[in-house]
């Protein structure tokens, strides 16, 4: 899909969420769903297979998000999947998150950790990242067991990597 079309979908979703007054919540739920979508081959294949009828794919979305996300989030994802744009869902959501962050003068900080962060840790990490980058950040935490331990934070083009996975890769490369 072209960038203009992705931006168009992102802007539409952003305006709907903002009109509903649930932008922060929807943005966070969409972000987490996008990461799950990226990391799960089975989910991605199920939602992007054009041989599967649109209503069936939308049914999968509803069964996944029905009791775990707001109705707005579920409806937005269902709309994108039903329109056959499932493959572009992560890019659309990332664009929406970036747009939402800009509306609040924030920079998106994607944080990957092997375990979930407490609210206190997220607050302190956001402050630390703001101190390190000089920008207020919109923290998006992704629990990613593949990092094994530690945290990797991406703010714009800056990557701060303190994961065990990276150290292991360096050790393997050195060996």
């Amino acid at each position, binding site marked *: 899909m072209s960038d203009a079309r992705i931006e168009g979908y992102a802007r539409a979703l952003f305006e709907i969420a903002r009109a509903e007054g649930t932008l922060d919540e929807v943005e966070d739920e969409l972000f987490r769903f996008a990461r799950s979508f990226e990391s799960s081959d089975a989910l991605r294949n199920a939602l992007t297979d054009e041989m599967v009828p649109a209503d069936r794919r939308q049914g999968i979305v509803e069964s996944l998000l029905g009791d775990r996300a707001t109705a707005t989030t579920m409806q937005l994802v269902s709309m994108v999947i039903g329109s056959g744009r499932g493959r572009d869902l992560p890019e659309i959501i990332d664009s929406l998150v970036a747009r939402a962050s800009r509306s609040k003068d924030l920079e998106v900080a994607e944080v990957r950790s*092997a375990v979930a962060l407490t609210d206190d840790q997220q607050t302190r*990490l956001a402050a*630390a990242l703001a*101190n390190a980058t000089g920008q207020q950040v919109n923290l998006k935490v992704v629990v990613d067991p593949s990092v094994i*331990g*530690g945290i990797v*934070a991406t703010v714009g083009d800056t990557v701060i990597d303190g994961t065990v996975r990276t150290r*292991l890769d360096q050790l393997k490369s050195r*060996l």
Partner: protein
Amino acid sequence: MNIYGLVAAGGDIDPSESVHWLWPPAAELIYGGIASLIIFSLLWKFAGPAAKKGMADRTARIQADLDAADAAVTGARQEAEEIRRAAGDIDAERSRLLAEADAQAADILSDGRARIETEVAELEARAAADAASMGDRLGDELRAEIASLSAEVTQRLLAETLDDAAQQQMIEDFIQKVGSSS
């Protein structure tokens, strides 16, 4: 009657009437002798040179034949000599060709040996290089395999040994490290 009389008589004279059966009459003997002299003189004068010339020509012809035979003998001898010389040349040529063939064979043999030795040396060097390369490659593959296995084992050990406290400690260390850098 003598023989002339008999001829003149046309055969009608009886031979018993002759004076002498052998000797003619004197007169007849005289003019007969004179006529013979005249005839011999004429023959000597007119036929002699022709006969002498014929004899000289015959002598010359015989001499020419003798010279030709002599020349033929000489030519035959020269030809025989040339044949003998040619036979000698052929022997020398054969010897030269044999010597040349021997030399060429020796050169070919020498070149062949040198080439074979060079090829053998190259093959040995290539085999040694291949063996060394294969050894290096196997060593690299083995090291890579060991590194991969080591990393895998380390990862599993870490995953098993990283408890929640260790995870929290790493998170806190990261926050502190990022917060202290500006």
